[in-house]
């Protein structure tokens, strides 16, 4: 197996402890939880997506494990501005604030609360299951560009996270690039649902949800590959990563780093697990393999 050099990673304006970042919304409700994931080996962490108003989220069931993945419709629960308190003790750590909103102005408003302290923002333009939020916005290049501009104006590294549920993800990636994004995160969950045949109704409280975990890995990989051709921004691969091999494969598709979410389901120590086989003293520089499958 190919291994990589250990050491701090600089990507999209943010310095991470390693290439493995905790994905937004997974164990990110509290600062303590983010701190735990950093202690457990995450190279950086993304918070739960924070919006302009507190939200309780959808009624349950909110998350159902499937064979090879998770199906969720949390409904973007978040404490809004109160979240500032969660992360004050993590000021020196690579904590990236995930933001969602219904308009560019809302994105800007949330960003303003964190502008003094955040090391970086990630724009959730992609949540596929929150009415009026998320994917509706993330599928329109003009809005993607406007939201990115609004937040990038704070002069803090701004990552834009894309939905795979669009006809052409390259177009959306280019819109983020034009809006001033410093990196692209690809991807959020894939639209899906399941029905309880015994109860004759969708199993999620919200009926629809998003699929994550290994079953979306080949979909996410393809998005990263497409974006590597379409954009010149660094890409952070996300979707189904659960092994060191997956990390290498994402990098060969074009990712400079990865995010990991659902894999904590099987093992909360997944970051250490992956790092143990990913890094070695005689490892390659990531640069040597990022995008090499395009040759």
């Amino acid at each position, binding site marked *: 197996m190919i291994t990589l050099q250990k050491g701090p990673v600089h990507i999209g304006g943010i310095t991470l402890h390693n290439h493995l970042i905790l994905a937004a919304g997974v164990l990110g409700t509290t600062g303590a939880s983010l701190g735990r994931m950093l202690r457990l080996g995450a190279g950086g962490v993304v918070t739960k997506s924070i919006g302009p108003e507190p939200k309780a989220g959808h*009624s349950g069931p909110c*998350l159902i494990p499937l064979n090879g993945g998770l199906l969720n419709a949390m409904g973007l629960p978040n404490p809004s501005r109160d979240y500032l308190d969660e992360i004050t003790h993590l000021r020196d750590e690579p904590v990236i604030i995930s933001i969602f909103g219904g308009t560019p102005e809302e994105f800007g408003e949330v960003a303003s609360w964190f502008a003094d302290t955040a090391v970086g923002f990630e724009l959730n333009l992609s949540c596929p299951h929150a009415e009026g939020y998320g994917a509706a916005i993330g599928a329109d290049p003009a809005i993607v560009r406007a939201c990115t501009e609004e937040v990038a104006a704070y002069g803090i590294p701004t990552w834009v996270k894309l939905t795979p549920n669009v006809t052409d993800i390259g177009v959306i990636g280019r819109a983020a690039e034009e809006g001033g994004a410093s990196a692209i995160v690809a991807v959020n969950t894939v639209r899906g649902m399941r029905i309880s045949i015994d109860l004759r109704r969708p199993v999620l409280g919200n009926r629809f949800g998003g699929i994550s975990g290994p079953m979306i890995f080949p979909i996410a990989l393809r998005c990263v590959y497409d974006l590597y051709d379409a954009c010149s921004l660094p890409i952070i691969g996300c979707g189904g990563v659960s092994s060191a091999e997956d990390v290498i494969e994402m990098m060969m598709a074009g990712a400079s780093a990865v995010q990991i979410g659902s894999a904590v389901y099987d093992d909360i120590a997944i970051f250490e697990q992956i790092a143990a086989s990913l890094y070695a003293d005689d490892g390659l520089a990531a640069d040597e393999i990022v995008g090499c499958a395009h040759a």
Partner: protein
Amino acid sequence: MHDGMPVVVTVREIIDETPTIRTIRFDHPFSIRPGQFCMVWAPGVDEIPMGYSSPDTITVQRVGEATAALTSLAVGDRLGIRGPFGNGFSPEGRLLAIAGGVGVAPLYPLAAAGVVETFILGARTAEELTFATPLAALADLRIATDDGTAGYHGFVTGIIDEEIDLSSYDTICVCGPEMMMKGILDRLDAAGIAGRGQFSLHRYMKCGVGVCGSCSIDPDGLRVCKDGPVFTGDQILNSEFGVYSRDASGRKKRP
């Protein structure tokens, strides 16, 4: 990741325990360890965590919308169950169980297994006492009611202070209102035996399987659904336990 779709069960029996608490028996037993819980899906309403009061029952107190739906179920109705989840209790040696209100539910399987020596059961008033009759046959049962309508007049902590030598027990399993549990933790801590306490915590849960983070507790980020719901006293000393918790949005609130 493996199929974790809710198992749809049919209600086989409904037992009125108290004016606000009902036990619901399914047609399907689960393979549980005492203290484990499930996510109960009241179709069209919500999915909420519930301890197993036996392999095929939950015991529900009506407090809001979802529990109202569950306590209104009739025999033959169907609901979805995901679980069992969580660690459950780790009984060892002489065991004292302390329950407040519906907190008796997850402790009952311990008593049913015959491993509880002394069981302290507290409730607001006599008619809210749950499982008192069977418990009397399974353990040395001590009862406390806030209003003195049965047993000791006062809180369970009162019984403990007056009648119980905590340090004579190897394991003290506790479930009930958080302030009650905090009172017991303080006493164990004072006696230098916080580690013997096993507390079944309640926190807002969305996924139940350790992914979403909504049940994480400060300051270590332990997940009540996966790392718990049962924690030893020393795990939760100097934590948010007894001080605050979070609501569905993640905002802090008093316990």
